[in-house]
């Protein structure tokens, strides 16, 4: 242990020295800055990996059994914003980050801004795997660059509409396929005493998923400076739509992920939930009394006949800066996120929905689900995954943006302000936050 640590420090020192000189020599070529030489090590390699996927240990054990020379030790912690990202940043600045870490797509830009990601482009098999992954996930991990790969996509959260089939049938309301129909259904359902859905104050990334579906994006990055576009026309269209539902008391306003919220679904007071694929388990565990009464349909569309979906959530596996074994780490990350056996295990343990094209065809994902009246619900999500706009970009300070927009959403739900106001406040504060972190931004 002692020896290992001291060699690690020495190695770190060498790496630092090399990257320092590399930096000085190649200043200006941004993308090659972080690239490391990616070659297999000699002898046995030990990797550390931090993730918050429940049951990840089982999957890692499968790898360890097959790869006696590349042993991975996994550590689990709270979810990203619950503390793990904070740990990563601390460890990165201290130079002792784990080799691999789970990072959600919306946090990747922040990690890159903090110089926390290893460019894996030169590692064997990484660039070749591009075609294995769903297009938009690849854009997320490459930041749209051709010769850089900063993480391996892991899972996605294609969105669809969960709805109470039984209640819609009983009330004779048609299943909405457009947002206009959805608003009309909302009025009809309210007349029955229910709510069509709940508007969550804090799930700002859910709202971003809706903007994503409408072909909006909250950030663009031109290389020189960031553009913040929370108040883009697409974004405001979505905000105005939901503001009307809120003002007309057509949606419930309980805080999401609380017992109260579970209760709203369990008692049939809320009828639909526009949510991601991983939400399937949230409903079945939060509303156990409604088994068999739910079904899944594609998201309502802005224009009849469109086929567009948003995405909510999903992670990647990144090799963090300072790892001595990027080659081995990259091989593990590729296996974890493309191997059918690994993907099946991840789905079984934690309900992860693969980010690979082939993964969508996994046998486990073609089965009917009892809670949803034996509907093969994953077919709907597989379609949605392929209908997700590939050009959506996250910004480098999402936690702060979420918090500021959520504060505004809270006011809108309380009646003092609108969702549009929340977006413009979020816009201003995000620009301020970028400036405070010395990140170039266009005003």
């Amino acid at each position, binding site marked *: 242990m002692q020896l290992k640590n001291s060699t690690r420090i020495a190695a770190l020192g060498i790496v630092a020295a090399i990257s320092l000189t590399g*930096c000085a020599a190649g200043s200006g070529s*941004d993308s090659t*800055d972080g690239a490391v030489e990616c070659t297999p090590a000699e002898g046995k390699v030990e990797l550390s990996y931090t993730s918050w996927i429940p049951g990840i240990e089982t999957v890692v054990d499968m790898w360890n059994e097959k790869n006696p020379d590349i042993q991975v030790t996994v550590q689990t912690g709270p979810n990203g*914003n619950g503390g793990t*990202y*904070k740990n990563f*940043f*601390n460890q990165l*600045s201290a130079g002792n980050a784990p080799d691999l870490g789970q990072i959600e797509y919306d946090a990747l830009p*922040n990690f*890159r*801004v*903090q*110089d926390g990601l290893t460019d894996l482009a030169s590692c064997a098999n990484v660039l070749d795997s591009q075609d294995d992954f769903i297009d938009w996930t690849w854009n997320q991990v490459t*930041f749209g660059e051709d010769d850089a790969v900063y993480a391996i996509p892991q899972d996605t959260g294609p969105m669809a509409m969960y709805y109470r089939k039984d209640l819609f049938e009983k009330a004779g309301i048609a299943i909405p396929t457009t947002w206009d129909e959805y608003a009309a259904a909302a009025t009809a359902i309210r007349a029955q005493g229910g709510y069509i859905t709940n508007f*969550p*104050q*804090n799930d700002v990334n859910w709202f971003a998923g809706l903007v994503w579906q409408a072909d909006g994006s909250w950030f663009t*990055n*031109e*290389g*020189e*400076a*960031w553009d913040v576009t929370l108040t883009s026309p697409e974004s405001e269209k979505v905000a105005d739509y939901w503001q009307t539902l809120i003002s007309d008391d057509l949606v419930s306003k309980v*805080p*999401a992920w*609380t*017992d*109260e919220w579970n*209760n709203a679904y369990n008692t049939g007071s809320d009828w639909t939930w526009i949510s991601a694929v991983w939400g399937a388990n949230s409903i079945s565990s939060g509303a156990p009394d409604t088994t068999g009464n739910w079904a899944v349909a594609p998201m309502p569309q802005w224009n009849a006949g469109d086929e567009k979906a948003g995405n909510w959530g999903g992670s990647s596996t990144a090799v963090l800066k300072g790892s001595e074994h990027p080659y081995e780490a990259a091989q593990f990350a590729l296996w974890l996120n493309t191997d059918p056996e690994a993907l099946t295990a991840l789905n079984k343990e934690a309900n992860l929905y693969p980010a690979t094209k082939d993964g969508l065809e996994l046998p486990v994902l073609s089965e009917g689900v009892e809670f949803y009246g034996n509907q093969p619900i994953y077919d709907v999500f597989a379609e949605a995954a392929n209908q997700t706009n590939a050009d959506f970009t996250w910004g*480098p*300070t999402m*936690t*702060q943006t979420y*918090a500021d927009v*959520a*504060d505004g959403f*809270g006011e809108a739900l*309380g009646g003092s302000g609108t969702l549009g106001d929340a977006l413009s406040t979020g816009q201003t504060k995000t620009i301020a*936050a970028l400036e*405070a*972190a*010395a*990140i*170039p931004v266009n005003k």
Partner: protein
Amino acid sequence: MTTEAVSAPRITPRRTPIKHKRAIAFFIAPFGVLFAAFYLLPIGFAIYQSLLVVEREGTFGKPTEVFGGLTQYFLVFQNDAFWASVGRVLLFGAVQVPVMLGFALVLALLLDSPLVKGKKFFRLAFFVPYAVPGVIAAIMWGYLYSPNLSPFAAFTSEFDLLSPSTVLWSIANVVTWVYVGYNMLIIYSALLALPSEIFEAARLDGANQWQIAWSIKIPLVAPAITLTAIFSIIGTLQLLAEPQVFRSFTSSVSSTFTPNMTVYATSAVPNVPLAAAMSVVLALATFVLSFAFLKFTQRKADK
């Protein structure tokens, strides 16, 4: 908390050589080394970091830290979220600390009076919550406040204890619940230490229990109350665990609800220099506030 009161008058003349040098070193060294390593060093480090600023070029340029003087402190003073959180805990403290200490004082006086039977039981019952860590207490009360799962759901489903306008006071109740018994015991021990002859004399003069409590006991245990007040003020400014736990129960608690949460959120951005500057400002504010309170009560007592 005065130092003069403790040290005996200096009889030893000035130039006498220090006796027992080695023993003194032996006694002080273990604590001294640890204190230097785990208090002074981190404080120095935090101050150092608060003087840095980050520079970078391009949207994904490497961050470099350079000396920036007091830049971060200017940013702290412009930071609305930080001052909003400071204002929130000051409001919290202005209400919760007097309520809690008043409650503790009443219970201590009652325990000390002959009016109450079963003192041993009550003393223990009131003290038990102190054995519950803040995190655990917050989890427990989180359920008690829940609109559906609470045993008092009939009330909590009608009156939302976790809404933006009420959650601060719901948290105040958790803190009060944990610490009343502890503060009561401190005051109660001070009461027990008072010589009983004083009360006998008052009683012979015809004073009743309430009068004795008000005009004799309370002034005599004022130092104990001051001590509990100072610790409560420090505790209030450091509020972190309880609101942090409440974030799992309600969305009314923002990530910058208390100053410490703001520091934590800022360092999670990560913007370590700004977070360090906030910590320094907060530590100074705590220091000034407790010190001012101490001086204020002392001046009153001296009159």
